[in-house]
């Protein structure tokens, strides 16, 4: 079948601002949106820029806005979206070219929450023990692939880009609720800050945007509640 695709193009070397380009593509309903982008790039305009690697929703490269919603282009099939298909870069981060945005501030926020296990105790020669129940408490937030779909769907982040954003809080959650970690207090102090978890207005955009099905808003609520337990 023929599919009409509109892509928001921007090339900093030639354009002053972004503009829409229309493409009519021969496509199979079972193909991924990513396959459509490849068709444009490989057989029509080689300069189209987008990130991608794994092509099956595990590396987090290709978050973009498709028909107004954040998703991974490799995780959605042509038959699941209405046409014409409108594709734009994720919002709130500076566009480098076409569908590629600058991720620096996103990763800076991630690093701010100390996203690594902190435990100064002597771990011993074998593994530390952890019960399946304790392991389950942070299962959901271990799934994050840092794709930025959540953060860039957040209305608070669009207006206040100093807000650490949902993805950073998700990654803090992953350690705050890990029974092996000793530094929750330090992380929660950071998230108590003006640009921390309390900026969240529970719009739930992040939860619907997350391609890994993480209950992002719930994780933020868990963190907010935990923050109240420290003084």
């Amino acid at each position: 079948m023929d599919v009409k695709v509109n892509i928001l193009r921007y090339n900093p070397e030639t354009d002053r601002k972004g503009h829409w380009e229309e493409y009519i593509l021969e496509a199979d309903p079972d193909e991924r949106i990513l396959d459509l982008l490849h068709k444009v790039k490989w057989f029509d305009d080689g300069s189209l820029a987008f990130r991608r690697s794994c092509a099956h929703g595990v590396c987090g490269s290709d978050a973009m806005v498709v028909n107004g919603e954040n998703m991974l282009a490799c995780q959605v099939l042509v038959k699941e979206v209405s046409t014409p298909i409108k594709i734009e870069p994720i919002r709130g981060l500076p566009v480098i070219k076409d569908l590629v945005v600058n991720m620096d501030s996103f990763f800076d926020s991630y690093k701010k929450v100390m996203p690594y296990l902190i435990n100064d105790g002597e771990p011993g020669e074998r593994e530390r023990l952890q019960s399946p129940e304790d392991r389950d408490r942070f299962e959901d937030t271990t799934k994050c692939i840092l794709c930025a779909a959540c953060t860039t769907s957040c209305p608070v982040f669009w207006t206040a880009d100093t807000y650490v954003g949902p993805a950073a809080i998700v990654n803090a959650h992953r350690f705050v609720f890990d029974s092996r970690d000793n530094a929750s207090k330090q992380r929660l102090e950071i998230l108590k800050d003006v640009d921390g978890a309390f900026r969240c207005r529970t719009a739930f955009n992040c939860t619907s945007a997350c391609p890994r099905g993480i209950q992002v808003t719930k994780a933020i609520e868990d963190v907010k509640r935990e923050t109240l337990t420290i003084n």
Partner: protein
Amino acid sequence: MKVIKHSFDGVIVGAGGAGLRAAIEAAPHMKLAVITKLYPTRSHTGAAQGGMSAALANVEEDNWNWHAFDTVKGSDYLADQPAVDILCKEAIDSVVELEHWGLPFSRLENGKIAQRRFGGHTVKEGEAPAFRACYAADRTGHMILQTLYQKCVSMGVTFFDEFQVLDIKIDDGVCKGVIAYEVATGDIHIFEARAVTFATGGFGKIYKVSSNAHSLTGDGPGILYQKGIPLEDMEFYQFHPTGIYRLGILLSEAARGEGGILRNKDGERFMERYAPSIKDLAPRDMVSRAIATEISEGNGAGPNNDFVYLDLTHLGAETIKQKLPDITDFVRTYVKIEPINDPIPVQPTAHYAMGGIPTDVNAKVLSDETGTVLPGVYSAGESACVSVHGANRLGTNSLLDIVVFGKRAGQSMVDYVSSTKPMTLSDNAAEDLTNKIENLMEKDHSLEFSVPRIREELQDTMEENAKIFRTEESLEKQTEILSDLRDRYQNVTISDKGKVFNTELLEAIELEYLLDMSDTTVASALHRKESRGAHSRVDHVERDDKNWLKHSFAFKNGDSVKLEYKDVELGNYEPKERKY
């Protein structure tokens, strides 16, 4: 072109599991940079699903010697046994270390790391399937990659994200650094470094149906091959039995480890005929061949009889949800089948390169078949060939390989840097590369010589002529096709002439590596007149230990490939017939 110069002691190319593990080892002892064409967390290690083996004996009696036996037998006796001993012995501490760094393994009721069964892993040298694979649901690779990256963040390791290395500088046989292209700006960066590790991953994109990411194009092996370094055991490429039909997306062997069954169009559990004792959990080369045989004998399912079924319906919704959540989601997302209720159409998918850059057990790159070390250059992970996987890798042994030998690469860098003086590169060190890029930019674009056209033909024909079953005829045919594609590649053109995020340019450069990987794979396969592990010659069906218990070394010789051989290092296990 803007050229920027940096000075480091060591550079690691690649930030998958192998590169990151090397970085953790090396960073405290030198000025180190990790250069990666993808953001680290987007490396394909993150796609690994089923597990990482170590004889922890958390579920049942186990020891590393049995693990070593299985690895050697799985390799069809081509693995170097001293290297296998290191792999299996160091496995235990490696898993424990990852746990200490925070890796959220799945747990047993008693709080220890959970372990599951996997193909080819047995207790007591073949008695029964072993619970040896440590896992975190079916996203073990994701957790390894995240944990190693987190550790690097905590250590403040220096990363150059979205910088693609395109050249290495070796003067008089000594390493002096690498040249990289900054994707966002098109600037060229010269990195002075006397120790360089390549951890660039695999090259599954030489085939059409593959479990590998678009970025897996064999850059490290390609760069070194073009400098005259040989590639080892390239004829051994692993096809994983269960890729989603047509898409190639992997459905981990963990599915069969948890009890999943392969069935042909009649619903028959055909693996009972091919491997009576361990059936669906036979090693991958055997299962992939069994599937290909079922299909060629008309037992495949579907209108074209070209796939078989992976049946998980008897496992129950709870096991599927707890232990195989991601792969069953892939099935729901891409083929709209509910695996709890219906069997899944699968076919073998190009998966893992046993071959690659030859190294010793300390990750030092060897420049010939006699074991000459190339000073300052290291490789680990899928880009390297130690060889611990021989002619066929067992599942879960690669995630293990990347941490064990990644660490050893880091240690070797430290030893080398502490006993040598800094190297300098001149300001025009990038000239070869800038000329190459300018040349590509200047040519007028023509569709006939476009990257996607040449690449598509390469992938289609490799799929047809050099996949699971090979013959002299199919390989000779492919040799001719490759030579024609190579000629066309000399005129390759691109349409994007810009500097910013010009991924078309990078795809053009990667295509040359894909051609190199294909040339060496086909030439090595054509020369090896026996069947062993993943290399099956229909015209030479027997394994021939008398003539072929050898590693192949493929050297670039103008536009053709020259082959040399090196004996396998044996150890405790004498080659025996391989039966399961």
